[in-house]
């Protein structure tokens, strides 16, 4: 037990050692029982100066028995802190909320033809000419629903005759489009309100589509 080690021990008791010095001291402590005992007495001396010496002192070999018991105890992995599962759940909930909000915001509500058309047109392929017409209509599939599959499965329903959607061809594909009930806000029908619906049942043969499109125009 050298004097320099004792001085480092004293500084460690006051939290004045750097991490590296503390690591070095720990290694010394591993092999130096006298140094470990001095640590015990340094703290007891501090208690004595403050008039706080406990009425019951642990017996001389107590700390050694505790460490022996710890060595025999089932080892609990000392792992890096992990975040509680609730933290991850909260993160997931926030992400889901943001996604829902993004869907609601990006839902097209009767875009003007000049703004909607380019968006839809970029996703139209030559193999689906009937859907290409939808791209030129006032209502366009939202960007998040763009692509062939989405275009085939979704149609927008137009409301009322005064709506800019009135001229929207109701059957531009082999799927039947059913207008939804208009939504009223403060008694007025919102011209911008729109809904998408998934259509499952084909009712019109594909050959009839060009004729219906001409009628709609």
């Amino acid at each position, binding site marked *: 037990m050298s004097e320099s080690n*004792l*001085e480092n021990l*004293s*500084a*460690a*008791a*006051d*939290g*004045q050692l750097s*991490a590296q010095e*503390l690591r070095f001291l*720990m290694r010394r*402590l*591993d092999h130096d029982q006298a140094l*470990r005992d*001095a*640590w*015990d*007495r*340094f*703290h*007891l*001396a*501090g*208690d*004595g*100066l*403050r*008039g*706080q*010496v*406990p*009425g*019951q*002192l*642990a*017996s*001389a*070999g*107590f*700390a050694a*028995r*505790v*460490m022996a*018991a*710890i060595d025999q*105890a*089932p080892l*609990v*992995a*000392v*792992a890096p*802190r992990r975040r509680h599962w609730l933290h991850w759940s909260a993160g997931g909930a926030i992400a889901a909320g943001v996604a829902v909000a993004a869907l609601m915001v990006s839902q097209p509500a009767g875009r003007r033809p000049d703004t909607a058309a380019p968006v839809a047109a970029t996703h139209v392929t030559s193999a689906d000419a009937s859907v290409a017409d939808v791209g030129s209509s006032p209502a366009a599939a939202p960007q998040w629903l763009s692509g062939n599959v989405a275009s085939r499965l979704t149609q927008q329903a137009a409301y009322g005759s005064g709506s800019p959607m009135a001229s929207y061809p109701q059957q531009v594909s082999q799927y039947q489009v059913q207008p939804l009930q208009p939504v009223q806000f403060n008694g007025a029908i919102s011209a911008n309100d729109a809904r998408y619906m998934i259509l499952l049942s084909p009712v019109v043969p594909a050959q009839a589509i060009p004729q219906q499109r001409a009628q709609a125009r």
Partner: protein
Amino acid sequence: MGENEVDQALVERVQAGDRRAFDLLVRKYQHRLVALISRYVRDWSECEDIAQESFVRAWKALPAFRGESAFYTWLYKIAVNTAKNHLVAMGRRPPTDDIAVEDAVHGPGAGRLHESATPERELMRQQVEQTVFSTVQALPEELRVAITLREVDGLSYDEIAEKMGCPIGTVRSRIFRAREAIDEKLRPVLDTREDYRT
């Protein structure tokens, strides 16, 4: 750096896998914990067993310790629960009112005579305090002031250096020399301490 920061540094070393850091925490708090438990359990032979079990539980739970409270506060709660569980297991009724952690650490009477203290143990406590006080009184002034500012007033080395008008290295040296002098006198007193297991 205060006591909590010193403990936290040791706790982080334990959490990083350094078992020796836990040995230092045990040695630092062994007397306080045994004294705390002796307030719940009168049988002295049981006190150290419960204190040992408390430390083992703390060791097992330490990976989950997040430092939201001071280490001793956390350890104190483990010890109180372990003592109460012991009383229940022995068919005894645990006390309904707890000792506040502040009283257990710094409060008046924290180290004073209580039901399970024997005259011999009380004498030991008095001898320790008297030895420390008399040694400090006999120290050269610069050592006495430095150790008092650190241990009693809780000042950092920086603050002590400023108060004493000397470099931090000198403060560190003075505090060490004061501790060394106290230790020289304290060691023979503690060597007479009974080891209840041997």
